[in-house]
């Protein structure tokens, strides 16, 4: 039944990396041993039921019962737990925090209520809710928070690390397969907790390098047309108080960086797909899609202004 979950892109039991696989192996070992122990206890209960009407009264049963209690409650657990403990100690280094400088690439992920800010130290690249990584490359993820406690978790790639004010936690992601892996906040962080997901997009190293080069660039200024009008609407509606678009005067830090928003797959931390239609709905009524979102609704702007905004934002590729 559990194995059937392999289809889910957030399943612990469909690991992609070595650390996730080691944890998965640990799980199935514990599961198998646990089922045997469970069966033993169920067996005793069944035995009690089957023998409920017998009337032999043997004096040695008391001593035998003591032996079962000490054997099953003390000796067997000591042996099994020692084995488990050794197993745990062996797996722990595989999922431990990498030392600073132990990898060529470091990615900073900063939790916000309720989205993920992603930075690539040493470059100007800043994005949100999508973590692009090169395949076959050890990457050190450093997780911090801008407000409350969040937890960074991509089950198919590695264990979770909490993002706690005043601290940073790190983990190594070394993904052998290209693909998109879903992650989600796993420490309760308020109204938007359920809608705070992200994607890890693992690309061939070359493709990743060109993505990063492009991501570093400031936003292109639209020459004319609706998109250019949209840029003016963006300034007029004070969107830049909360959002940053590098290369423009917009430098807010409350919502996600929008420099290359047009190239992202989803909006609002994986809440809705990133299409012009969805973006229009999002701008008009963010609370309808993600209750509690810090983004105010702009339904009061004229439709033409919102259309221009959408055209501008979608042009930021």
């Amino acid at each position, binding site marked *: 039944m559990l194995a059937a979950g392999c289809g889910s892109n957030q399943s612990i039991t469909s690991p992609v990396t070595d650390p996730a696989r080691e944890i998965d192996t640990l799980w199935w070992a514990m599961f198998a041993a646990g089922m045997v122990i469970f069966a033993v*206890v169920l067996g*005793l209960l069944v035995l009690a039921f089957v*023998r409920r009407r017998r009337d032999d009264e043997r004096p040695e049963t*008391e001593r035998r019962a003591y032996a079962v209690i000490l054997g099953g409650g003390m000796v067997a657990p000591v042996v099994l737990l020692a084995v488990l*403990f050794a197993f745990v*100690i062996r797996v722990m280094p595989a999922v431990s925090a990498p030392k600073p400088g132990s990898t060529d690439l470091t990615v900073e992920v900063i939790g916000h209520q309720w989205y993920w800010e992603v930075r690539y130290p040493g470059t100007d690249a800043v994005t949100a809710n999508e973590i692009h990584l090169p395949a076959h490359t050890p990457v050190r993820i450093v997780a911090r928070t801008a*407000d409350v406690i969040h937890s960074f978790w991509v089950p198919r790639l590695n264990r979770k690390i909490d993002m706690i004010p005043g601290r940073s936690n790190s983990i190594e992601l070394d993904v052998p397969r290209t693909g998109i892996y879903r992650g989600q906040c796993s420490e*309760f962080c308020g109204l938007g*907790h359920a809608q705070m997901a992200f994607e890890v997009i693992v690309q061939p190293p070359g493709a990743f390098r060109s993505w990063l080069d492009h991501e570093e660039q400031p936003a292109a200024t639209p020459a004319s047309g609706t998109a250019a009008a949209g840029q003016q609407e963006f300034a007029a509606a004070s969107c830049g108080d909360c959002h940053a678009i590098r290369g423009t005067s917009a430098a807010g830090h409350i919502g996600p960086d929008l420099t290359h928003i047009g190239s992202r797959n989803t909006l609002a931390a994986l809440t809705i797909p990133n299409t012009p239609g969805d973006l229009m709905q999002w701008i008009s009524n963010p609370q309808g899609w993600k209750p509690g979102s810090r983004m105010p609704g702009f339904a009061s702007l004229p439709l033409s202004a919102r259309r221009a905004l959408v055209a501008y934002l979608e042009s930021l590729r």
Partner: protein
Amino acid sequence: MAVESPAPAAAERIGRLDRIWAERPGLSGWITTTDHKRIALLYLATSLAFFAAGGTEALVMRTQLAQPNEHVVGPATYDQLMTMHGVTMIFFFVIPLSIGAFGNYLVPLMIGSRDMAFPRMNALSFWLYLGSGLLVYSSLALGMAPDAGWFNYVPLASRRFSPGLGIDFYALGLILNGVSSTAAAANFLVTIAKLRAPGMSLNRMPLFCYAILATSFSLIFALPPLTADLVFLELDRKLGFKFFDVAHGGDPVLWQHLFWIFGHPEVYIIVLPAFGIATSIIPTFTRRTMVAFPLVAVAELLVAFIGFGVWVHHMFATGLPQMTMVFFAAASLIIVIPSGIQIFAWCMTMVTGRPEFKTPLLFIVGFIVFFVFGGLSGITLAAVPFDQQVTDTYYVVAHFHYVIWGAAVFPLLGGLYYWFPKVTGRMYHERLGQATFWLVFAGTNLTFFPMHIAGMLGMPRRVWTYPSGLDWSAENLVSTIGAFLLTAGLLGMLANLVMSAYTGAPAGPNPFGGATLEWATTSPPPPYNFAVIPRVTSAYASWDDDDRADDRRRLESGELVLETGHETTASTPVDGHLDDVLHMPSESPWPFVLGIAATLGTAFVLTDHYLIAAATAALAAAVLVLWHAGEPAAA
């Protein structure tokens, strides 16, 4: 049955006891009572009312989660429901039911005493509990319930991120609740140490009392860290202190440490009385003594002790040093051993006895199944890397509901059936009882088993909604169906008990052949519990026919009847030698008044009326003086 048809001399003594121990009738009798049995019934009714509230909250949440992208409630409501559900079930349902109701009713009866050591403090414990519960629930009525989850992590619960009064209701309500629990625990410690019947040395004390003893010790040591944590939080929120504020040298992880230093022992506080109930029911229905009695007694105490050394396994994802995690993983594994000993002792008692699977024993069998299953999933959470995967997912929700609902509450349900004849004097309906057991058992598995799978598939806990396409839908739908099935079973059980209270067959003093002293008196017991203080020569006092015949003889001769005053006996703490005759306080309105004053004072602190709060505190102090004014001088 001589108690029911006593000889003339005995009848006269009983008449005198009836007059001495009579309490005033009607509602005012319930308000002023110091009878541990009536206080237990107050706890029972109140905790069941809160159980209904917490259960309703759960059903609304399960309805919201039945399908992906549902909109039964939004996150603002959901977060309040989820927080109130956790707080209610732990602080206002399970602990008051297990310790307040079962402990209060049974401990004095089982040890052959006429009341708790401090009857008025016992009443105060109840009124403070009721006050704290009403205070916290008033927030829900006002639409400003706490919404940061039952473990209320900062900085989410700080004033900056939770500006309303919700978190203050939580913090101040739980401080008040902690006072109630501390008073109750101290009362049990002294009662168990000093008020045991003559002859009841520690090795003859029923295992249920060992469980309550261990629980009380745990409460005394576990509550101060929680209270400190809550006081720090309120100082931060109300007066601008910086205990948890990183920008000013505080640390949010401090909250987590203090919370879980309380929070993990709390799990054993919840589950230990259940162990005690299991070890009461099993001997009765297997017609034999517990196998390995001393081992089980020591195991109960060890569980409570080791429970204080495992709290960090709630924090494996916070980035603690590896050595710290290894230590706490080891401690978390070691606690399996005393639990394992008890499981095998229960099983072997059934295997070597002649078990009669009546409703109470069925609930204990269900308890063993759930406890083993939840214990095994608990072991996996001590395995650090696996815990770091599944912590804060539905796997954990599944685990602790198997333990807290399956293991801790099932024996309480079994106990409700088991002691129902003692409390009401009437039998419950056995067939219906067994039917409701199977409904509740199936409902529990249907509700909580699929949550393991949802968690393994990556579903985080505390989400008010989830998208489709992640294979979580079937598991959640089954859980929701299970929750309603479980509710149906519980309603069936309620109907059985309520109807049987009026129409059940008369039970007599000991309908099941129970072994402990509560079965040696009438059903329901008289206000003074025993017409004569029993003498005890084994841990299975009600099976010692000679001793009980001796009680009846002593009632006629007047030895240890204590019919001249409101009195009970005290014994030496270890050997149980008769030590003293204690004059016991009688009914009083002051615990109730002090309970109101304390609750109002807390409410005034909550609303920033510090002067009025101080005035209320002065009123409470005056009440304490009056409390003792009416007391006859100690002999």
